């Protein structure tokens, strides 16, 4: 549990991926991102990016920034997740350039692009756009709310 980098084989790719990803902190990779937990627990203050180039710990955030980040976490949590089942249509996460392994926790964006949860969530916390097609993620989500 909690490790999406399964080392069932010892080929080049799993060797390159090495042991655990440093960002592998969530106890449930398919569930909501660990950020919210961290935001409420505050045991080891995590870093946030109210803007992509700004890095702050939770205690340094203004109220406005906290609201913005909370909203963003909420949006990210609404994006569907799943486990890679070996489907041949999607093979690689373009952020870490790693092939998907069966059981990897994936996140599906509204534009249909798919990434590792750990890889894309870190990016979405900085910028709510799909790195492959630049489609703004929140706009797509908001339209789907409105139509529902």
């Amino acid at each position, binding site marked *: 549990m909690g490790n999406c980098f399964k080392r069932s084989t010892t080929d080049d790719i799993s060797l*390159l991926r090495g*042991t655990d990803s440093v960002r592998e902190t969530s106890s449930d990779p398919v569930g909501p991102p660990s950020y919210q937990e961290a935001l409420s627990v505050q045991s080891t203050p995590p870093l946030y990016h109210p803007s*992509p180039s700004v890095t702050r710990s939770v205690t340094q955030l203004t109220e406005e920034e906290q609201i913005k980040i909370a909203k963003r976490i909420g949006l990210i949590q609404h994006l569907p997740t799943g486990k890679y089942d070996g489907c041949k249509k999607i093979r690689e996460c373009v952020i870490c*350039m790693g092939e998907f392994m069966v059981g990897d926790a994936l996140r599906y964006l509204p534009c249909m692009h798919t990434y590792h949860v750990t890889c894309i969530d870190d990016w979405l916390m900085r*910028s709510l756009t799909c790195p492959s097609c630049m489609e703004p993620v*929140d*706009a797509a989500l908001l339209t789907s709310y409105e139509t529902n």
Partner: protein
Amino acid sequence: MSEPQSALLLRKQLAELNKNPVEGFSAGLIDDNDIYRWEVLIIGPPDTLYEGGFFKCHLYFPKEYPLRPPKMKFVTEIWHPNIDKNGDVCISILHEPGDDKFGYEKASERWLPVHTVETILISVISMLADPNDESPANVDAAKEWREAYTEFKRKVARCVRKSQEQEEC
């Protein structure tokens, strides 16, 4: 042996570039023990003023790569509107995306975590062929490029010559 993802990703790219070199540049590390600092040799693109030149550049990757872009600097002297006089390259894909609320239409031109050494270098090589004078990093070069093209050409030719001499020794 727990290496950050950024180091693994860069190592993977280096291995790939060594195995399948890309036309127009060659890539390696400044220091074999530091995967975050690259040295790249750009071959002046054919049919441009920079043709025949060999331009050495350094790329400095942050630990947060690919979430944040590297910085790029020409070590070899070069005269170009989008490269400042210290050699620092100023192109939009090396800039972090701005605030989400306002940056949609420009997001495609900004940094994205799918950029690699190869895609960065392809952008830089196309910038050499096709300067963007809207936001020049070297105002004098941009002005010459627009208003005194002969003088601009002369300065570029001098850099190309110098770069060839440096490569020989």
